[in-house]
């Protein structure tokens, strides 16, 4: 549930990021940044889904540091794109 909740929070950020990129813009950089925010959300969904599957057995598998780094990297990536779309 914690992973699902986090994907929902990320979805809200992705919507705000895409809205910011598209709102009254014609710049290709802004469009690219908006697309990258959406892409980072999709990447986070993949990481979350893999981890949710690994948690399914009664004795869940250990989490790999790379998975955590990937999840945090998606947030940092979204933040970097958000800086680009600021007006």
């Amino acid at each position, binding site marked *: 549930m914690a992973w699902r909740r986090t994907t929902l929070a*990320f979805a809200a950020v992705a919507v705000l990021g895409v809205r910011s990129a598209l709102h009254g813009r014609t710049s290709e950089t802004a469009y690219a940044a908006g697309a990258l925010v959406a892409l980072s959300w999709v990447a986070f969904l993949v990481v979350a889904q893999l981890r949710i599957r690994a948690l399914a057995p009664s004795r869940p598998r250990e989490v790999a540091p*790379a998975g955590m780094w990937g999840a945090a990297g998606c*947030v940092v990536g979204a933040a970097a794109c958000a800086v680009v779309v600021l007006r």
Partner: protein
Amino acid sequence: MARPSSLRLWFSPARMRAEGTTPDYRFSLANERTFLAWIRTALALVGGGLAADQFLTEMSSPARTTIAAVLVAGGALCAVRAVNHWVRCERAMRRGEDLPPSRFPATLAVATVLAALVVLGVVVFGGPVR
């Protein structure tokens, strides 16, 4: 034996497993949930920055962009710190050591209180928004 830095542990499951013994998986899961809570805090900061940029339309552009940029940068910092703290906690649990102390939650709490006071001041007394 030299202890690997948190940065090296970030990327290597093998190095992590080489540290101490595997703790009760319930503790690891609790550490993972704490990591995710910090990630959600980071997302809230990034989302708050984007919302400030989009909805504080009556504020001057430099002030609005500064507020938004500070919030977004805080979100990125929070996400990086989430990984670092998760690695340090995981290592401490594996080695049977005390959990690492951190000033970050208190710093974030103080910053949140200060921001709330500024917003309260603007709402009550008027300011750049009015």
